[in-house]
């Protein structure tokens, strides 16, 4: 009895998490407009998804925003973490505390305060995309900082000194010694930045140009409207994103397994 209770709990949890996504995925391949209706196989949702210009520009806009803001956030967060790590303790602590503000703050508050400062007080037009990009960098740079910091702490500091003693300039030592050692932290920070940007609704709503939509803002508006064709095309989008995420997760797992077995054979 006890032996099966554990797995049952886990399986029930997985059903709760995945049932809606999977059922929606099945229905995305029919021409049904509500769940429960039994209809024939159809690719019409996917045709709408890939041929409606409005949907295409919204998807690519979201991806472009995620890439631009994540690159900026990764650079800022990484140099910030390095600078803070080598500063005096007191400055480093202040740095860490300021970095923590957007992490613990509610997204709505971050978004609203940025909108007031940039748009209302400074008069920056939302159409320039500047408030939106800054907003997404505010959202994600702190997480880059947080994922780089532990790598800096684990780093062997004598290697940097050795490089300097052997005649490397500080810039060379930074590029060839420090960056490679914290690289895994930079990569996971970048990945985190991408997911935060793709998932964001609030920053975008408060800072985006009126004519621009991200997936989040588009979906929320679409559910308010009564446009069934768009509504069911979004089921298709949800399925496509689910499959991409699944593929990334599987390849990450395979890669990790490979690294692990290589490590084992090295030892």
């Amino acid at each position, binding site marked *: 009895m006890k032996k099966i209770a554990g797995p049952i709990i886990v399986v029930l949890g997985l059903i*709760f998490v995945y049932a*809606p996504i999977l059922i929606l995925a099945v229905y995305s391949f029919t021409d049904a407009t509500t769940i429960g209706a039994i209809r024939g196989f159809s690719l019409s949702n996917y045709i709408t998804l890939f041929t409606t210009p409005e949907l295409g520009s919204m998807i690519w806009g979201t991806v472009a925003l995620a890439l631009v803001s994540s690159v900026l956030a990764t650079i800022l967060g990484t140099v910030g973490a390095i600078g803070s790590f080598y500063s005096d303790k007191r400055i480093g602590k202040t740095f860490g505390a300021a970095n923590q503000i957007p992490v613990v703050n*509610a997204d709505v508050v971050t978004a609203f305060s940025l909108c007031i400062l940039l748009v209302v007080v400074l008069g920056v037009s939302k159409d320039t995309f500047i408030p939106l990009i800054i907003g997404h960098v505010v959202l994600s740079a702190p997480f880059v900082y947080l994922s780089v910091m532990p790598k800096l702490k684990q780093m062997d500091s004598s290697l940097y000194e050795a490089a300097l003693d052997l005649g490397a300039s500080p810039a060379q030592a930074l590029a060839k010694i420090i960056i490679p050692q914290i690289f895994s932290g930079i990569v996971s920070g970048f990945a985190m930045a991408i997911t935060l940007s793709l998932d964001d609704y609030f920053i975008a709503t408060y800072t985006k140009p009126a004519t621009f939509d991200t997936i989040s803002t588009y979906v929320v508006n679409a559910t308010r409207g009564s446009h069934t064709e768009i509504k069911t095309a979004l089921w298709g989008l949800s399925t496509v994103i689910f499959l991409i995420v699944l593929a990334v997760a599987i390849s990450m797992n395979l890669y990790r397994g490979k690294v692990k077995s290589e490590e084992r054979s090295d030892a």
Partner: protein
Amino acid sequence: MKKTFARKYLGIPYAIFLVLFVIAPLLVLFYYAFTNATGHFTVENLIGFFTDSNTIGTLLYSLALALVVTLVCLLIAYPIAYVLARSKFNSKSVVIMLFVMPMWINFTLRLTALKEILTAIEGNLAFHPFINTVIGMTYDFLPFMILPLYNTISKLDGSLLEAARDLGAGEIQVFLKVTLPLSMPGIVSGTAMVFLPAMTNYVVPDMLYNSTYIMGSLIGSYFSAYDWHNGSMIALVLLLIIVLFTLLTGSEEEEKRGGALL
């Protein structure tokens, strides 16, 4: 001497960025919360918030909702995290990944999926607005509760549990007196990840046709009305709750660490 300076100065761009776009917006928020449309100092917004039964009602509703969502998340996440952390199943990292993976799918799309399912089950979402919102938020925030719990429980020292058993404690006693207290750090950080979003993420009630406002929706409505002053006051109240919450959970974690040393 010059070399150490070079690395330290790398922090300057990010420091400037934080001052300009993290600290300055909060200062502006303060300014707007305590001024009126003509720019004069006023405490009207503050008094207005605490004397208007609507805003107080919203605050209480958000707190109640956040409390229920946090408890439901905890009740679902704890058994899952516990089973996974204590099991000797080889590929449990894959299962954990399965629970985390939905975080990578846009939350509005996941909510769309949930909404369609709930509509199919309930017929009309309008009949159970509170329950639907709890389900929606639990669905959205569950991974944020499972992950810290799993991390804490899997680091738990197994020999302590054995010692308790050897000393004659029953399984329930072991759980209540050893496992549960030792998983407190995970419970605290999971709660921190769920409670505040539950008070502020108004997309969930919006999408599930719950027309009752939560704290986040108040900001949203003032934003739509270009009422920066009252909106700032709401944001400030939220900020205060966040600070209190952080202090509370932070000190508790430190106590735990102190307790572990004894």
